């Protein structure tokens, strides 16, 4: 579809007339110059004209000035209609061409508005700093990576220490708990989190039950599907899946929230007042998750088991009574307690990862996104690591 403007545009395209006058190459600009890609380019135009020579010589014949080698370029205004940046770009091309060929460039015959802009564009910036940092060698990059990893580890351990000190101050009455922030976290991780936790927990219970029914039926052991669902949900999947959901939901939220505060200098305001940001910002968040994640996991366990029971009873010969009886025989209170203990640890990990990366956010807009991503990655990694360690310890202690 043609540009409607083109239908209204008078046929007066940008043009340049070149002629030799003594030692000067005179370029007269005319027509309508617009940023539409049709404006002429200086170097090809002049090179073509100089190599052809005829047009220039014909023009030059009208003058009495002695011909010599070109030593300057003169720009003139012809029937110049509208113009925009495309004309300025053309004139700057001429200036660059003249500089390359050691020719003087004279633009004084052009309208003052144009020469003003050319003068403005030729002002040397106040300072130019080297922008390109040299790319380090491969070995150096490995070393830098190692140093960065060590620095991050040290910063994380320092942060753990600061949080521990904060809790010590809190429990010894040397700092006050920010209860409003605490209750916000509690609310966000109770009713606010229930829909997603319900959905994921039901689906996990359903998946475990499906797996159990399909595999155990081959051995005529469908009855034991309740073992799988109960054992799996209470000891492993309830805590693990809820932890992963909360790392993505709440951990990222903490990082983004604190990161935004860093960018708007709210954290600096705490620091300059001599208030530890950890006390006001980190303790209520970590404590809130400490409290809420175990409760969420208990809820997820129940919902997941119900989901698993529904699948087990509807797709195998197992009755609800058999399912519940089987589960009661298979699992014990220690299994449920183990899941809750894991949830408590996961709550601390999520709060730690979110707050740690939030407080370390950079100063640009994309830094908040990077912090949120890092918080989720760190949170999930530590949760899985912690889960493996707790399982190993539980197995060692025959729990």
């Amino acid at each position: 579809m043609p540009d409607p403007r083109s239908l209204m545009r008078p046929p007066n395209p940008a043009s340049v007339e070149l002629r030799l006058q003594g030692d000067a190459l005179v370029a007269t600009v005319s027509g309508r110059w617009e940023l539409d890609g049709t404006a002429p380019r200086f170097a090809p135009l002049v090179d073509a004209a100089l190599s052809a020579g005829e047009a220039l010589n014909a023009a030059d014949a009208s003058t009495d000035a002695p011909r010599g080698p070109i030593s300057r370029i003169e720009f003139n205004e012809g029937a110049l209609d509208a113009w925009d940046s495309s004309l300025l770009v053309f004139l700057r091309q001429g200036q660059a061409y003249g500089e390359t060929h050691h020719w003087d460039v004279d633009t004084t015959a052009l309208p003052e508005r144009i020469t003003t802009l050319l003068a403005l564009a030729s002002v040397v910036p106040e300072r130019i700093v080297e922008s390109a940092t040299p790319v380090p060698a491969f070995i150096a990059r490995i070393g830098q990576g190692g140093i960065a990893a060590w620095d991050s580890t040290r910063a994380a351990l320092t942060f753990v220490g600061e949080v521990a000190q904060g809790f010590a101050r809190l429990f010894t009455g040397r700092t006050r708990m920010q209860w409003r922030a605490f209750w916000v976290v509690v609310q966000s991780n109770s009713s606010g989190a229930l829909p997603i936790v319900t959905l994921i927990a039901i689906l996990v219970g359903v998946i475990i039950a499906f797996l159990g029914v399909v595999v155990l039926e081959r051995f005529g052991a469908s009855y034991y599907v309740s073992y799988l669902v109960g054992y799996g949900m209470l000891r492993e999947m309830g805590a693990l899946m809820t932890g992963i959901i909360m790392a993505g939901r709440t951990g990222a939220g903490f990082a983004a929230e604190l990161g935004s505060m860093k960018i708007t200098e709210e954290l600096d305001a705490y620091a300059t007042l001599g208030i530890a940001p950890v006390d006001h910002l980190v303790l209520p968040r970590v404590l809130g998750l400490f409290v809420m994640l175990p409760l969420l996991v208990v809820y997820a366990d129940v919902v997941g088991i119900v989901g698993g029971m529904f699948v087990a009873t509807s797709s195998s010969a197992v009755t609800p009574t058999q399912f519940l009886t089987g589960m009661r025989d298979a699992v014990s209170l220690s299994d449920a307690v183990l899941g809750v203990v894991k949830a408590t640890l996961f709550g601390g990990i999520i709060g730690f990862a979110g707050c740690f990366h939030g407080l370390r956010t950079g100063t640009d807009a994309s830094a908040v996104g990077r912090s949120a991503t890092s918080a989720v990655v760190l949170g999930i990694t530590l949760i899985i690591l912690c889960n493996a360690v707790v399982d190993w310890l539980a197995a060692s202690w025959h729990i």
Partner: protein
Amino acid sequence: MAHLIDAPRPVAAPVALDALCPVEVTDLTMRYDSLVVMERLTFTVNRGEVFVIMGGSGSGKSTLLKHLVGLRDAPPGAVRINGVDLASADPAERRRSLRRIGVLYQGGALWSGLTLAENVALPLEELSTLDAPAIAEVVDLKLALVGLAGFGDFYPAAISGGMRKRASLARALALDPDILFFDEPSSGLDPISASRLDDLILAIAASMGTTIVVVSHDLASIFRIADRALFLDIAQRTMTALGAPTALRDAPPNDEVRRFLTRDSTSIP
């Protein structure tokens, strides 16, 4: 710089932009939900002039600017940019109209993930038919115009606040707009950087013929750059003065304008 109207569809005779009012506001009421911020705003901006919207904090200056640049919807017929009613224009016409304006936001609003050159090049890549070498030359020109030649490879985070604003101006100038809007251009700048930005505004208006609308409460800047100024009175919730700043200062139409233009902080008797 003369331009043709960016009309929505071919018409019999071309209409030069010079014949149209660049900014026309008619009985505009600005509100946040049910809260009326300003009402009965009626004014026009002349082509090629530097027009300042001034007023105290919370008077709705930035809100008015958002109406003018299409970020907030205005009632039909209340805001016309180059003759186009942004509220009733079809999406394509609205886009074409907005393409003819440039905006310099208060904080610069440079895209932090792009270098300065990429920031300036992006509007040209998306909205012009220029090829890559031509775009590179236009980018060099725009950065040079704002005194940032050689800084194209820098990221916004690596330069000062004043340079960020100038880079943002280069981006706003990328498509040779007919109208440039500035939101508090001198905020957060030292006096020298603010004065330099004022110089740029004046140079652009004089050399390129661009119509410039500035939201500001910086008196030094207002007296230096404004051809005319509009005063938004927060108490009366409407505009109460329009004219050359020096004329308004010498013969203020009301006490609020006098107090604003003379920095008089004494309470009203």
